[in-house]
């Protein structure tokens, strides 16, 4: 099975480990990733503040490039914000002829055209539904017993397009986590927003939201994320937020492919756990002990 692969800007630098661990995991599970060559930014939440058409054209460009490559495959997108923009563009172009006309008129500048048809899939959707917990369980080499993992879905992976999990009470990560031998930490904040989009402009508000999440995760060994912006937002400033709330809130934050990779006995190096900004010492010792 082949997938187009759209990493997105943050996976180039600030979320490099997410990109590398995803590629490594997919290779291990026998799925081929075709990175769209010359892909450009999807516009995230900024394009929409400048012009509605721009916020559709930018993602449409990447969809057109994927279609132009002649392959027929779903497009796998690890970052929730890119996933939302790509899917929104695909739907609007598919549904509304007026938008389709304008977008294609713009894309013509780059000799591209797009009429819809590429199915945009989030990484979690592919892991949960195409690969499935069974494959992870079969390939399990390094069980992680007793590890309490809090699944964090963020917001834009689930809403407004609720096509692979319940937008309010998601459960698609549970089976995957249990397949690794770890146990799912029971909390109700899995689908709450961490305010990452506001971290640069409205820091105090974003930190409040992060603090609530870390508070709720008390008792879990680590939080698992499926979006570079949530990851960065939860990792950065754990000390400052602990001071703000007046109690220790430090907790390890790992990407889902990293956790799954560990259970399939991929080396910590290959999963670039070294690049994670927040891995508590007890968590690292735990992983080392389990590796023996």
């Amino acid at each position: 099975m082949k997938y187009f692969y759209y990493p997105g800007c943050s996976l180039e630098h600030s979320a490099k480990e997410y990109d590398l661990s995803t590629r490594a995991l997919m290779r291990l599970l026998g799925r081929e990733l075709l990175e769209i060559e010359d892909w450009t930014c999807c516009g995230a939440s900024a394009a929409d503040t400048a012009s509605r058409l721009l916020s559709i054209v930018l993602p449409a460009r990447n969809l057109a490039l994927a279609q132009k490559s002649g392959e027929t495959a779903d497009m796998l997108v690890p970052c929730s914000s890119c996933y939302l923009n790509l899917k929104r563009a695909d739907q609007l172009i598919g549904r509304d002829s007026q938008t389709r006309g304008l977008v294609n008129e713009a894309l013509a500048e780059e000799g591209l055209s797009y009429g819809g048809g590429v199915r945009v899939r989030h990484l979690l959707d592919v892991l949960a539904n195409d690969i499935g917990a069974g494959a992870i369980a079969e390939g399990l080499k390094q069980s992680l017993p007793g590890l309490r993992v809090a699944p964090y879905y963020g917001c834009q992976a689930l809403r407004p397009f609720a096509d692979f999990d319940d937008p309010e009470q998601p459960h698609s990560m549970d089976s995957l986590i249990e397949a690794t031998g770890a146990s799912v930490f029971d909390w109700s904040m899995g689908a709450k927003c961490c305010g990452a989009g506001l971290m640069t402009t409205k820091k105090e508000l974003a930190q409040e939201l992060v603090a609530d999440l870390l508070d709720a995760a008390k008792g879990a060994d680590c939080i698992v994320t499926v979006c570079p912006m949530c990851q960065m937002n939860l990792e950065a400033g754990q000390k400052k937020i602990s001071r703000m709330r007046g109690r220790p809130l430090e907790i390890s934050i790992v990407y889902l492919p990293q956790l799954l990779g560990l259970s399939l006995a991929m080396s910590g190096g290959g999963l670039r756990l070294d690049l994670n900004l927040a891995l508590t010492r007890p968590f690292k010792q735990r992983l080392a002990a389990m590796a023996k």
Partner: protein
Amino acid sequence: MAHSQALGAPGHSARDPFSEISKNLRACMQCGTCTGSCGSAAKMDYTPRQVWRMVQSGLKEELFTSRTFWLCSSCYYCTLRCPRGLPLTDTMAALKRVATAEKYANDRKSPPFYKAFLDSVRKYGRVREAEMMTRYFLAVKNPALPLSFVPLGMKLLAKGKMELQLPGVSRGGKLERLYKKVMELEAAQ
């Protein structure tokens, strides 16, 4: 209490984006589900429900003194739960568009950030995070802001997760033609 406000439905010029927004919101029955669902409603001076009401009643000037729509983190809870199925999160984005386009300077940080972000994409096709942040800090002209990001910057540098590029050095202009075409099309609509 507050001055009494002559009420009249918003003006109806053909292509005014503001009346476009109000047309989308007409079916709102002020049930308050959106405000109840909004994570950042506590910090907003006007709650989302009051914003829709002001749009419906055409109170444009007063609306754009509010910072509500800048606090929207596009988490789409409100769109999911609105019993009228209205595109509420998209409306918040549209209000940002109108505020930026018609230069209502009620927020000093968000417009420059989004501009820096889009300029970087316009130039390199992708966001060069370091360069984008420096351009944003320069635009905001408040030294305290960059200082607060230094610890995160240092950690990223140490881990090699951020390249140090100097602004304005390389050529760029990757999506220049695309941007121009889009602006042209948008204006013609």
